[in-house]
C-alpha cells in the first residue's frame, strides 16, 4: 500500500477482473505508446514516513528567520498584522478547506454565502458596488483591471503613477505586452515636499488613447495620494466619470491598501472606477508571499466585464434564500476565447480569512486600528528622522509605512541592524533596481510593533548608521 491509497491485493485482483485486464501495466500499455513511456523510475528521493517528512520540513523552517524570530519592520506589500485565532480555526475546517468551486450550489451554500459576505465587505471598504469573489493577488489584480479597461474602451495606453509598487509596474509591463498595450509612467513629485504623484504630469499624460489611469493609495513609499484630485484630473474633459465609452476619460484604477481604507476616503467617494489591491493584510499569513488574495471592486457599469467568480443572491424552488455563482456568461468555461478573463478559480479560502478578519475588526475596530497605526507611524517617522544621517524622504501624510533616506549604505546599515535582531525595513533600491531609490529604506509599522519596539529600532538604527561608512563608495571614515 502506498501512502493515502487503499487498494489491497484482494481489491486489486477483483478490480482487474472487473476491468478485464491481467495487470495495471496492461491498462497503460494499451493506451500509451511505448516510445513515450518513461521506462525507468523518476529520479526523486524515496518516500518518507510522516514523521520524517515533518522533521525535514521543520528543519527547513528552522533555517528561515520569520517575523517571530526578529523585530521586523518589513512591509512593501505584505504586512505582519496580527491574525486572530478564529481565522485559523475557521479556515482549517474541512467544510471550508476541502471543497472546490461551488459548482453545485445546493451543497455549497456555506462557501457561496462567504463569497457574498466578502463581496459586501469589499464594497463597503472601497465604496464601489460591484466586487468579485477575489482574484490571485495584488499586482496581478491591477493587471486584470487594466485588461477590463481595454475590453471597456478598446484603447491602447495605460498611464501609471511611479508610486505603484515595483512588482505591480513589472507585472503590468509583462501583461501589457500580451494585451497589446503600452505603459506610460508618470513620476512622483521630487524633494521633501514631494512623494505623491505629479498631478500636472499625470493630467498631461492622459489623452485620447489612454485606456486606464492607475495609481496606488497609499503609494509604494507610504504617501497618501490625493485620490480625488487624481481622479478628477484624469477626467479633465468633465464627462462626469465612469470611464464612459462616449467620453474621453480613461478608466481610473486605484491599487489600495485595505487596512488604510479603514480610515482613508474610499476610492468610490474619490471618483475612482475600479479599486483593486493585495488582500494579505486582512487576516492572511505572510507565507513568504502567498497564497493571499487580490480584491477587485468596480462601479456597477463594469459588472458584466469583470474577471473572476461572483456570488449572487437568489431563491430556491421553495422560495428559500440562497446563493449561486452568477454572471457566468463572462467566464472562460462558457465564453472560451470571448471570455472577459482566463481566470478560473478565486482565492476562496484566503477571502474567507479576509471577511472573518474584517468581521473581527468590525466597524469601529478598523477605524481604531487605523488611528493607532497613524499615531505609531508618525512617532516612528519623527524619531527616526531626528537621527543623525537619517532623513524623511518626504513630508507627506502616511498611514503605516514611510520612506527614509540614509546618508549611509542601506545594505550595510541593514546588516548591522539585523545582527542586533532588528530588521529595519526594506532596502528599496534592492527591490526596485531603480537608481532613484538608492539610499532609501522603507519602514512598516503594524499594531504588533509597540512603542518599545519602535524605540529599539531607533536605537539600533542610530548605532548602525553611526557605525557605517557615510560614503557608499567605500571610503574609510573614523568611527
Amino acid at each position, binding site marked *: 500500500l502506498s*501512502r*493515502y491509497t487503499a*487498494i489491497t491485493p484482494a*481489491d486489486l485482483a477483483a*478490480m482487474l477482473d*472487473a476491468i478485464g*485486464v491481467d495487470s495495471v501495466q496492461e*491498462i497503460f500499455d494499451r493506451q*500509451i*505508446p511505448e516510445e513515450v513511456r*518513461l521506462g525507468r523510475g*523518476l529520479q*526523486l*528521493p*524515496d518516500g*518518507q514516513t510522516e514523521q520524517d*517528512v515533518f522533521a525535514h520540513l521543520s528543519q527547513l523552517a528552522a*533555517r*528561515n528567520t*520569520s517575523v517571530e524570530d526578529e523585530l521586523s519592520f*518589513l512591509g512593501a506589500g*505584505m504586512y505582519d498584522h496580527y491574525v*486572530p485565532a478564529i481565522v485559523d480555526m*475557521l479556515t482549517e475546517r*474541512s*467544510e*471550508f478547506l*476541502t*471543497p*472546490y468551486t461551488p459548482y453545485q*450550489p*445546493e451543497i455549497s*451554500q456555506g462557501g457561496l454565502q462567504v463569497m457574498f459576505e466578502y463581496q*459586501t465587505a469589499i464594497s463597503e471598504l472601497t465604496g464601489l458596488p460591484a466586487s468579485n469573489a477575489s482574484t490571485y*493577488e495584488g*499586482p496581478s489584480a491591477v493587471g486584470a483591471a487594466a485588461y477590463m479597461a481595454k475590453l471597456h474602451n478598446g484603447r491602447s495606453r495605460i498611464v501609471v503613477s511611479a508610486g505603484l509598487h515595483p512588482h505591480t509596474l513589472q*507585472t503590468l509591463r509583462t*501583461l501589457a505586452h500580451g494585451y497589446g498595450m503600452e505603459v506610460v509612467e508618470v513620476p512622483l513629485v521630487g524633494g521633501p515636499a514631494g512623494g505623491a504623484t505629479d498631478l500636472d504630469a499625470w493630467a498631461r499624460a492622459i489623452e485620447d488613447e489612454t485606456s486606464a489611469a492607475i495609481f496606488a493609495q497609499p503609494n509604494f513609499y507610504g504617501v497618501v495620494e490625493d485620490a480625488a484630485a487624481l481622479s478628477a484630473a484624469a477626467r479633465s474633459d468633465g464627462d462626469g466619470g465612469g470611464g464612459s465609452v462616449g467620453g474621453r476619460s480613461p478608466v481610473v484604477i486605484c491599487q489600495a491598501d485595505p487596512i488604510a481604507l479603514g480610515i*482613508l*476616503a474610499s476610492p468610490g*467617494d474619490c471618483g475612482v472606477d475600479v479599486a483593486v489591491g493585495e488582500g494579505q493584510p486582512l487576516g492572511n499569513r*505572510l507565507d*513568504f508571499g*502567498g*497564497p493571499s488574495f487580490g480584491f477587485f471592486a468596480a462601479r456597477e457599469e463594469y459588472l458584466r466585464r469583470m474577471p473572476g*467568480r461572483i456570488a449572487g*443572491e*437568489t431563491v430556491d424552488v421553495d422560495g428559500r434564500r440562497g*446563493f449561486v455563482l*452568477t454572471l457566468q456568461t463572462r467566464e*472562460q468555461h462558457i465564453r472560451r*476565447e470571448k471570455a472577459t478573463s*482566463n*481566470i478560473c478559480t478565486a482565492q*476562496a*479560502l484566503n477571502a*474567507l480569512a479576509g471577511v472573518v478578519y474584517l468581521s473581527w475588526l*468590525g466597524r*469601529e475596530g478598523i477605524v481604531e486600528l487605523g488611528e493607532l497605526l497613524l499615531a505609531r507611524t508618525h512617532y516612528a517617522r519623527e524619531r527616526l528622522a531626528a537621527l543623525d544621517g537619517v532623513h524623511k524622504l518626504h513630508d507627506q501624510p502616511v498611514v503605516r509605512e514611510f520612506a527614509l533616506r540614509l546618508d549611509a549604505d542601506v545594505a550595510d546599515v541593514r546588516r548591522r541592524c539585523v545582527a542586533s535582531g532588528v530588521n529595519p525595513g526594506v532596502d528599496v533600491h534592492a527591490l526596485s533596481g531603480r537608481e532613484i531609490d538608492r539610499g532609501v529604506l522603507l519602514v512598516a509599522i503594524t*499594531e504588533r510593533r509597540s512603542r518599545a519596539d519602535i524605540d529599539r529600532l531607533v536605537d539600533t538604527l542610530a548605532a548602525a548608521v553611526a557605525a557605517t561608512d557615510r560614503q557608499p563608495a567605500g571610503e574609510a571614515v573614523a568611527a
Partner: protein
Amino acid sequence: VSAIDENHLHADPGIDGHHPHHGLSAPPTHGSAASPLQRERARTIFQKGARGRRAFVCPALDVPSVDADELLPARFRRSAAARLPEVSEPEIVRHYVGISKRNFDLDSGFYPLGSCTMKHNPRLHERVAALPGHARLHPLQDDERAQGALELMFNLQQALAEIAGLAHVSLQPSAGSHGELAGVLLTRAYHEDRGETRRKVLTPDTAHGTNPATVTMAGLQVVKLATNADGGIDLDDLRAKADDDVACLMLTNPNTLGLFDPNITEIARIVHGVGATLYYDGANLNAVMGLSRPGDMGFDIVHFNLHKSFTQPHGGGGPGSGPIAVSDRVAPYLPVPVVVREDGPSGATPTFALDYDRPKSIGRLRGFHGNYGCFVRSYAYIRSLGADGLKDASEIAVLNANYLLARLREHPLPGGGTVADYLPLAYGQLCMHEFVLSGGPMRRELKIKTLDLAKRLLDYGFHPPTVYFPLLVDEALMVEPTETETIQTLDAFADAIAAILAEAAEDPEIALSAPYTTPVRRLDEVAAAKQPVIREQLAEPVG
C-alpha cells in the same frame, strides 16, 4: 445504504424536514416553509450583531497623542466608517461554523469532479505549512536568512522538472490559468526573439475553457482543432491548419475525455515542423506521473496544477498554484525570479538565491515569488510519496477510474440492461484517470438529463461528477475518482447511479425535482443573473 447517512449535510433533520428517498419510492413531498434553523442560516453576518458590539480590542495608544488633522488632513479621511459587521467573537464563530455545515466537502464524502483531481488532502501538509518558519516568513526577507524556503523552492523546482521531463521551472504562476498565460507569453517571447510574429494558437475542441480565454488575453488568435472518432486530435485537420503563422498548440494529454492521444509523437512532429511550440495543460498530470513525461512526448511548456496533482486543499475555489516547466529553447524567457543553487568551494554547504538576472525574461506575473504556502504542501507530498509513490498514485488513479467505468458498464438495472445502455462511454474502451459518459440515451429514454442525475446524486450523499464538459459530448458526465478512494466507495457510487436510473425508469419526476435533502433545493440561477444582487442590502444608509 448509501453514503448519505454518513454525510453531515444530512445529519441535521431540523434543516428542512426532508428525508432522503432511495430506490423506487414516489417523489417525496416537501413543505415550502423553512425551519427556524434554516432561516437563521440564510442570514449574513451583516444581518447579525448590534451597534457597538465588537470582537477586536485595539492595543492601547502608547505613543504621544497628536492632533488628528496633523496626522492625516480631513480631506483625505473617510466621511463615514465602512459598515462592517458589529459582532462578538462567539457570534462570528457560530455564524461561520453554522454556514460551513451547508457545504459538502472532500473530507465528508466522495467528490469525483472530473478534471479537478479531488484527492485526499493530508493534514500533515497543513501542519508543516503552519510552522512559523514557513507561514510567518516575510517575502522580502534577505535570501541568506530565508535559506530553508529557497532550498524548498529549489528542490520543488527540481522535482517538477524531473516529473515533467523539462529542465527549467518557474514556480511563480498563481494557478493553472495563470500558468497558461505565462506559457503563451513565453511562446510569444520565443518567437519574437527569433524575429517572428506568429498570431495563431491551435486548441482542440475538447480543451478547457481557460486555454482559448488565455490565448485571447495574450493577444493571439484561437484556431480550433477537430477531434477524431477515437477522441484524439484529428491529424488531417492539424496538418491542414499547421502553418508558419501558428505559434503554439495547446494540448491536454490525457485529454479531457480521459484518453491518452496515441498520436502524440506525430502531433509533436507536425507542430515542431512548422516551428511552433507545444504546450501541455497539466490538469490531467495525475494520470501519468512517473509513467510518461510531457517533455519526452515533445512538449516545450508544461503547467502544473499543484492543487490537483500534488494535493493542495481546494479551499472552496482557491488558492491554487500553477508552476511551469519548459525546454531549453524557452528557458531564457521564464518569469523572474527563479531560485538558483550556488555551490561554494567543494565541501561547503550550497546556498540558494533568487535570480533576477535574466535579460530575456518576460518579467513578472505577480508580486513576490509565487504561492509559497502551496509549495510547502506539495513538496511535503512529493517527499512523502517519493518516486515510487507518485507512480503508484497515478497507477491507482487509472485503476480506480477503469474499475468504476467497468462497474457502471456492467451494473444491471431492474428493468433489464445495464447502466451503459443509458450512460455509454463517449469514446474508447479503457480510460486513463477519468472518463466521460454521455447522458444522451438517458435523456431520450428515461427523460432525465445529466443535470437531473447530478442533482439526484446529492440526495445520495455524493458530489456529482463534472457535467456538460467537454462540450463535444452530448449530456457529458466527467468522472474522476482519484487514487485515494476505496473500492467500497466506488461500488457505492456505481450503485447510486444505477438506483437513480432505476428510479427514473419508474418515475422521472424523482430526479427532475431533486434534490430534496440539501440545505436548499434547486436555485433560480436565471433570476440571479437577470438582476444581480451581489452584496447584502444594508438597512442603514451610508453615514
